[in-house]
């Protein structure tokens, strides 16, 4: 655990030592602002909640999270520092978990900086802050799920562009799996798959949190989803580290 946190702290420090952190946070906040207030018609709805904010959140993460994860392993490989990191007395699992935690903590910081939305809605009305809190928990879990996917993709390639594009693509599959576009197609052609698609959909699970329901099954889903992709990352890193 100590080693995991050491790796995480070093990695997180790396984000803030470069413009990556500032650019990411500014773009994230700007996108969320524009989408919530303009497209989401936050004011016109005349309701004291953050529904538009949370509806757009997974899609913004879908675009931005792979931008964080694309460098997670691909950059280590390009710089050769992967050889240094993996010959320190750490297990592969500690290195993988440490890097993931750093990226997740970074997303948590970005998410925390959306606090003006919460203040705004509280000034204008009296929203159910419990629902807002559970929405934030859900948002953080979606970010974690996408980060875990992105970390596996990043471990598989040295090229950051490939890591980004593949990361978006794979995350999109899990985000869109429950949308009518996909489920209708599947129910027509392969009804068994439609049920599965709904089950593994990150967006579907997230909806519960947005409605204010923190379900144990959804928590278990996110934990296993993240665990599975991190395990896969460990296997890929171990297999491809020296390529």
């Amino acid at each position, binding site marked *: 655990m100590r*080693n995991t946190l*050491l790796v995480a702290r070093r990695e997180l420090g*790396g984000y803030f*030592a*470069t413009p990556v952190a500032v650019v990411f946070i500014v773009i994230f906040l700007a996108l969320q602002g524009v989408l919530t207030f303009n497209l989401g018609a936050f004011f016109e709805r005349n309701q004291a909640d953050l529904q538009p904010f949370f509806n757009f959140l997974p899609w913004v993460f879908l675009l931005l999270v792979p931008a964080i994860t694309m460098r997670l392993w691909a950059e280590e490989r390009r710089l050769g520092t992967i*050889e*240094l990191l993996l010959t*320190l007395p750490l*297990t592969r699992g500690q290195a993988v978990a440490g890097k993931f935690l750093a990226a997740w903590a970074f997303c948590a910081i970005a998410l925390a900086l959306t606090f003006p939305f919460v203040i705004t809605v509280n000034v204008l009305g009296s929203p159910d802050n419990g629902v807002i809190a559970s929405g934030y928990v859900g948002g953080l879990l979606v970010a974690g799920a996408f980060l875990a996917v992105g970390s596996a993709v990043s471990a598989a390639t040295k090229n950051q562009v490939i890591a980004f594009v593949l990361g978006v693509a794979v995350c999109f599959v899990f985000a869109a799996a429950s949308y009518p576009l996909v489920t209708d197609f599947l129910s027509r052609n392969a009804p068994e798959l439609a049920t599965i698609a709904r089950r593994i959909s990150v967006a579907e699970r997230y909806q519960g949190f947005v409605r204010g329901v923190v379900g144990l099954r959804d928590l278990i889903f996110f934990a296993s989803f993240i665990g599975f992709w991190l395990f896969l990352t460990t296997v890929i890193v171990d297999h491809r580290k*020296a390529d």
Partner: protein
Amino acid sequence: MTSSDSLQDGAPQGGAPQGDAPLIEIAGLSKRFGSFTAVDKVSFTVARGEVLGFLGPNGAGKSTTMRMLSGFMTPTSGTARICGHDVQTDAVAARRSLGYLPEGAPCYPEMTVLGFLHFVAAVRGFSGAEVERRVDHALDLATLRGVRLQPIETLSKGFKRRVGLAQALLHNPPVLILDEPTDGLDPNQKHEVRTLISGMAAEKAIVISTHILEEVEAVCTRAVVIASGRVVADETPAALAKRHPSGRLEEAFRQITRPENRGAENIGLETMGAA
């Protein structure tokens, strides 16, 4: 440059065997990339007090062998042990006893020298005042004190190399594997690093790869020459030099590693092994 006596055995070294057991044991180590054999059944051992110079033309398999020895690259076949710990099956224990400078001395560019060494010290299991003491000592060993607050990306090639060296020496490991430790250093710095290595030699098993043959004569007690992935010579630098009539190591190296001579050398190796 000072000797590292004061910090001897403070590091968690994971039960290094005492006595005559070799600290580094490589047996039948091979690495194939597809149909290309980069390293072909390399075997040797290095005991405490030995400084092994690992020589060979570019692409001969030096770095590949060192990567397998450090546990970074998985061998196709064969085993490597550091202080009795298999680098594949008992990897973390093996890496605890190892100080490793990878090829090109990679470091995190955005970190300061001090921040980087603190990170390595913490991962090496030190805490509190011990971290400060270790980092301080490593800064002195590699003469990095003047640049300790600079980001590594702003340093010259020679300084970067020394940051890599400081990182490898920080925990005073019983085994050192240094891939081209003097590459990119100026003559004064080269001399300092050689003095440093000679000063530590008695208590460690050290493997260095280099293209500078005078370095081998200056610091190494043994020279292993590798060509096309095979060990073609393993003897003292003086004995190696005598292989050529001129008595010069450079001529001997050229004679052994030139492709057209290699067939003859394999016969030479067999007689040498019998002796």
